[in-house]
């Protein structure tokens, strides 16, 4: 008698979002998260993990990343980044995956941090760093609604402290 191993279904882990929705992911993919891995290894019978800080849209996005890198290592992003364009810093798939609005990137980054997925966290941080790269101080202040707290003399002093400004 021969068994068809392909037909044996892989164990699935149920991720419960902040809204209470359940998103399912294969165990082998979910193990990318050190947080989920420690839950599974710590309690043998665990098949559901509650993630009260992460909404279902973000969880779906995380699952997409987990499934893509289930069988391979994510590329390492060089520090510091070389360009403000993500496709020049990482693979095309990663660049496309992270091509989202600012709030989504921040949420994804928070989720990656919580789930202890360092490659995904680094991808989000690199994306944020791209948004800072090549911007002037005034542009940065305007875009991120940062109030100038430095008196003008201090600002001049800060300039003077940085000899590399001459480069």
């Amino acid at each position, binding site marked *: 008698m021969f068994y068809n191993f392909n037909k044996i279904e892989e164990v699935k882990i149920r991720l419960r979002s902040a809204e209470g929705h359940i998103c399912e992911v294969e165990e082998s993919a979910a193990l990318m998260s050190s947080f989920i891995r420690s839950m599974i290894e710590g309690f043998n019978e665990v098949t559901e993990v509650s993630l009260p800080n992460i909404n279902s849209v973000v969880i779906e996005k995380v699952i997409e990343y987990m499934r893509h890198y289930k069988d391979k290592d994510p590329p390492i992003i060089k*520090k510091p*980044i070389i360009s403000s364009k993500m496709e020049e810093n990482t693979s095309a798939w990663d660049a496309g995956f992270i091509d989202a609005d600012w709030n989504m990137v921040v949420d994804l980054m928070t989720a990656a941090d919580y789930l202890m997925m360092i490659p995904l966290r680094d991808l989000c*941080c690199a994306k*944020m*760093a791209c948004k800072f790269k090549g911007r002037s101080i005034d542009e940065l*202040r305007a875009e991120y609604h940062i109030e100038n707290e430095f008196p003008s003399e201090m600002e001049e002093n*800060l300039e003077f402290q*940085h*000899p590399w400004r001459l480069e």
Partner: protein
Amino acid sequence: MLSLNVFQVICEFLTYKELTKLAQTCKKYKKIADSDKFWKNEAVRLFMSELDLYQIYDEIAIYPKLAKHENELSGSQWKILVKNQFEIKYSWKQLEGENLSKNEIDELYWNISEELKNPTPPIPSLKAEYFPSNYQDLLGNSLFLDPNENSSHQGILQIFNSNFQGFCAEFTSISHISMLISAVYNTWSPDFELKNYPWIMKFYSLLYQMISINCKFSYSKIVCYSGENLLDEYMLRWSAFSAAMQNLSEFLRPFTEMVNYIRNEKIKENLKTKEFKLHILMNKLWKEEVFEKIQAELSENILNLWRKIRSSDSDSGLNLLIKSMDCIIDHSVDEKNLLFKNHTHHFTAKPYKFIHDQAIEKTKKYYESLNFSNENWRTIIDRDIRIVKLAFLPATQKAIEELAYSKIQKIIASQISKEFSRFSIKKIYPYNEQIISEYVYSPIGLLLFHQEKSVSKVRSFISYGLSKESYINLFRIYNDGFRTISTIYDNQDQEIELKAKKCGFSSEGSRCSPTTELENWLLENIVII
């Protein structure tokens, strides 16, 4: 606004310029962007590079490689170091002018900074003498260098060769001359105010500061570690620096020749000073900026490592001990005492002397603490002496071997005395009479006579002992131990003295023609600006 944790990770993906800009947007970001961690990463990336010395200097690598963990507090100010390095880079522009164009200056800066940042292993070449490290090789073989041999790196530095007269003419005042003398003596600490200096002194000044800041970077990196990791990092950084020392000495030979040419032209024959050598200056800066600051910690870690190897059965860590001791020896030798480093009486240079004294003190205690009642005492002492011979200089080897033999003699004396007291005369065992007499009138015979004044019993015991192989060995070790040690080391010392004499060095480790008084007088009277 982003949380601090998130912002910290983002900063890791930015360069120092972007970080600086972010820091200027608000106080919160300034605080994070000023943190030592970012500046350390940037400093290493820009000016040190994470030298993969394990690959570059394969032969010196420690196997297995240490998995090094950095301490959290590095205890240095990386941002200030990066800032200083940039200031030097911009000051370099002051060298532009009649002698060198902007491109030439940039090329010169790039060559020197790259060599300091990522030194290439020196190319092996035929040498008059073999020395175990780059630095000793540089010191030792400079004694045999042919001054007429041309530098292999001419290129841009041809400028020095073609402008001897012009450079020399810039030394117009007594302050310029005294500046030059103090530079030759390595007692001049230049600053960034280069305006009134002759061109050669401006170049010297910037070179000095580049080397000095490179040493400060190395120090900051080394103190990130502790224990054996610190020894490993120190050994690697020093190897890299001494390789840079060797390469830059060769690359900048036209410059050192220029300095020495001006010294010859401007200083009267009767006030002649010693020659300027770049490797001497570089070594002085390393000692000041790195070695002297962590000397105590290095010595302590070396002694701890030695103690660990001694008390274990494996040789794990021995390679690191040997290489670390090579560093200490490098910092103890100079042009005058190098040839005497293997002499058992005439090598008393300080950093090594401290370890030597400590080693002897600790060995005394170690041998006292050992239990020699079992049969393994010979194996333990043999292994101990083997380690000492690999890691330490002959002066320490001799002293420790003497301690070991003194201990061995005591053990043998106690074993034989015990046997002798139980021994009763039965007969003279068949053995050559002359050999028995030789042993009776030797230290072992004396030991037995002291115990019991009976010639016939002593003769009988010795003849009995000579008929048993285990006793013959004990008799020989007891009689010959010290004699053998002295003979080996005395012969070695005589050879060193003879060789040194041929090179013009006296047994006190100084040149036969003394210039010390003149040098001291110059230092006290002229060079203080």
